[in-house]
């Protein structure tokens, strides 16, 4: 496989974007990415679109050609396909594009991720998210997507003494980071009291432990390193990529306090990159709930199993800490349009590694890791990027 780099990134503002349609969001993010790369549309060899549930949320499938068409590139007849892995759809699409370019099948590919959540009412959002779980053996009996993460939180607190306050600190930190990101859905700074006093969703997880589902799209342009250097002055190298799956139902896993898919996807990405956790200067992790970030920093190898809560409490994961986690604000503050999240994470890595992240810039960032999870952890994607 040949080396591949990111040469352009784009992202819409995330939020309740009532006035914008799915296809407008796709076009807006894609245009920004292609402009950032500085290439004409005809240079693109293929597109990949990550989306969790457009068929349910807006009644639209067949998103591959939709993206090409909306970009005004239907005349190129380029190949384009939609990739689905629940809320890891963005990470999954990125990996598929990476494999295609690394293999030599394509030289330049655009990967988009998008979701339009707010065209349906809250209840339908809940039902849609539950489709990432096992419909017949979890959701049928009343399990919701938050309830699965809540059971992981309960067990993590039971086994390792992780505290409610430590979980709240994840949300507080990510909102602080998000307040420095003009594209984040939620720019407000919050305190632990806000989290601990917010309505209960699924005990022990409250509303402010949960990432909100919003509208948004993100896109990146990737190319083989040779082409990348020719087209763009600031390519960011994709050093490692790993993906893994696990049982669809949470109850069939060996452990409720780790995501084996994350651990194994990370091992694969580190191996490909020839790097270890300590070589990362920052990470964008999948904090769909506060407990998810605590477990992620353990499963990605940054701290030992069971010590994630303490690490958050120590300030290690803050912007000025040893390993800033979610400098973008994460899913919590940036907002979580399921299909777009994995691509938005890659965009943040690129901004950080180019040194253009502004107020939330991680000082001395040479390498960063992106971690995207599908559902309760049946899919995980880990990517490691390095500035050149």
């Amino acid at each position: 496989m040949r080396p591949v780099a990111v040469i352009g990134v784009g992202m819409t503002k995330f939020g309740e974007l009532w006035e914008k349609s799915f296809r407008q969001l796709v076009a807006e993010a894609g245009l920004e990415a292609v402009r950032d790369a500085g290439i004409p549309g005809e240079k693109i060899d293929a597109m990949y679109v990550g989306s969790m549930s457009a068929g349910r949320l807006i009644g639209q499938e067949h998103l591959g050609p939709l993206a090409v068409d909306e970009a005004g590139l239907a005349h190129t007849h380029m190949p384009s396909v939609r990739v689905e892995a629940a809320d890891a759809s963005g990470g999954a699409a990125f990996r598929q594009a990476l494999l295609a370019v690394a293999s030599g099948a394509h030289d330049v590919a655009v990967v988009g991720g998008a979701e339009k959540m707010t065209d349906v009412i809250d209840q339908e959002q809940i039902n849609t998210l539950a489709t990432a779980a096992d419909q017949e053996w979890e959701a049928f009996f009343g399990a919701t997507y938050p309830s699965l993460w809540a059971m992981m939180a309960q067990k993590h607190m039971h086994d390792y003494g992780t505290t409610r306050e430590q979980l709240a600190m994840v949300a507080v930190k990510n909102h602080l980071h998000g307040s420095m990101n003009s594209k984040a859905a939620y720019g407000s700074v919050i305190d632990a009291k806000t989290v601990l006093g917010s309505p209960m969703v699924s005990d022990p997880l409250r509303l402010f432990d949960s990432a909100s589902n919003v509208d948004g799209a993100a896109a990146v342009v990737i190319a083989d390193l040779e082409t990348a250097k020719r087209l763009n002055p600031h390519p960011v190298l994709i050093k490692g990529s790993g993906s893994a799956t696990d049982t669809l139902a949470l109850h069939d896993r060996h452990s409720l306090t780790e995501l084996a898919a994350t651990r194994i996807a990370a091992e694969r990405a580190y191996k490909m990159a020839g790097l270890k956790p300590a070589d990362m200067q920052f990470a964008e992790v999948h904090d769909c709930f506060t407990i998810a970030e605590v477990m992620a920093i353990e499963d990605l190898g940054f701290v030992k199993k069971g010590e994630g809560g303490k690490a958050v409490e120590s300030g290690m994961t803050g912007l000025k800490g040893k390993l800033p986690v979610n400098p973008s604000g994460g899913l919590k503050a940036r907002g979580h349009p399921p299909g777009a999240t994995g691509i938005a994470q890659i965009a943040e890595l690129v901004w950080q590694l180019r040194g253009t992240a502004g107020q939330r810039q991680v000082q001395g960032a040479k390498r960063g890791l992106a971690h995207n999870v599908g559902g309760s952890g049946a899919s995980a994607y880990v990517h490691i990027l390095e500035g050149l």
Partner: protein
Amino acid sequence: MTQGPRFWRSIDQRYNLEGVKCGNCGQAIFPARTLCPTCRHLSVGKLAPFQMSGAGTVESFTVVHSPPNGFELQAPYVMAIVKLAEGPKLTAQIVDVDNADMRVGMPVHKVFRRINQDGEGGVIHYGYKFSARPVRGQGAKGQAPMPVEGPRGSHRSPGAPGRLG
């Protein structure tokens, strides 16, 4: 709304906690699968129906305050991951308990209950929940502690399916 057959196919499993046992490795499996995940092709033709006793313990739990469609009237309710005495784990509601009394490791046993309803006047779905109420006169080892508990109260309607354990 989903068509009926999708639910009929699962009746033995959801009503009676019937799984399968692998004739190759002896592992109890719930819900029934096409292949034993340990033996895979070696298990073809060797998976025999197997009745779980219904006894289990709580591995972890949560109280759902924000319910999906069809569960609005039940919230807040307890969901748990239950490890069955025979080994398999499953996700189910816990009943007959004060939510505040829930504990990891708590013993529970299977009961038969109404799960939800597909909208107003829609199909009523039945299946297992797990009760935390202590069992009186527990049976001999390996037997179901409470093999049959029929639908109660308003659930005992003429429309209720008749296939109880």
